[in-house]
């Protein structure tokens, strides 16, 4: 063999595989839906489906228990989950006075590495899958949250901000006739 097996930066390549696959998904949705709002909704829904499975993988890997409060949740999300799966560590910022709302500042967002938003798609929240994933994962931990992007570097903002708001604690439902 004249060729040697090259050592690739596998972590980087897997990241690119993920980013490209995400690009394919968004391009398919853009093709199928005229309205940006519909695309956003689909991305959120898919994110949710990913989140509810990913959280199990996260728990299996990290051996974590449940968080004691919402501050700890923010920490685990930013420093462990985002780090583990996306290889970035967002900064936690803008806590609300009641400690029920915070932002994750994504200095570099791996989802948008090769992306430029088309002009006629100004309402598209390209990374909306992240909102759904966070929502789905936390729901499995009995936390109902809302998640959205108030700022997005793809739209000309100087930072990408993912806002997460605590809504309520969920309780397990019991099967009918158990009481």
């Amino acid at each position, binding site marked *: 063999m004249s*060729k040697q*097996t090259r050592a690739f930066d*596998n972590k980087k390549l897997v*990241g*690119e595989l993920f980013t490209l*696959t995400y690009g394919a998904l968004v*391009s*398919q949705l853009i093709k199928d839906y005229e309205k940006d709002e519909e695309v956003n909704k689909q991305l959120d829904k898919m994110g949710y*489906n*990913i989140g509810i499975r990913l959280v199990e993988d996260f728990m299996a890997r990290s051996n974590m228990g449940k968080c004691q409060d919402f501050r700890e949740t923010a920490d685990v999300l930013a420093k462990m989950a985002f780090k583990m799966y996306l290889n970035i560590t967002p900064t936690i910022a803008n806590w609300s006075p009641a400690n029920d709302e915070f932002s994750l500042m994504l200095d570099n967002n791996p989802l948008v590495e090769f992306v430029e938003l088309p002009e006629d798609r100004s309402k598209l929240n390209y990374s909306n899958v992240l909102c759904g994933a966070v929502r789905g994962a936390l729901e499995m931990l009995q936390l109902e949250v809302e998640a959205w992007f108030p700022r997005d570097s793809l739209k000309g903002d100087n930072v990408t901000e993912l806002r997460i708001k605590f809504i309520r604690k969920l309780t397990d439902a019991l099967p009918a006739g158990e009481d």
Partner: protein
Amino acid sequence: MQEDATNVLFELLHDELISYVYSNDIDMKSKQISILESHGFRIGQSLAEQLTKDSSRFKDELEIMKFVCRDFWSAMYQKQVDNLRTNHQGVYVLQDNCFKLLKRISSGKQYLEFAPRFLAIPCGFVRGALANLGINSIVTAEVISMPAVKFQIMIQRV
């Protein structure tokens, strides 16, 4: 060694793309496969570009196939193809005895009817990688018992 976490995320995204395409009202199954395959094609092209960026040109077609079996496969699935065969007339068969995207689904015939949807994007990966290296091909996959897959590459010479 524990699997890279980003890989898990990729697989979940891959599954969402598939179930989205299959949830759409398209009456022909082949249409769904071809949508997925063409996404795979573009992704495979870009990744092969990354992988071969700083390497010299390949000597011949067989060298390229070996690259796909070793380097490309390792990068995508963290293992190499188990067996490569050719009829020396432009047909290559890549056998992976434990294909990564099937190995948690089934070992045997359960869910066999779903196998094609999980192989559409990977077929595109191979066709895209080869296209990037200057080879036009048609790539199909065959499964008799999961998780083993035979990818058949037919070189298209114009």
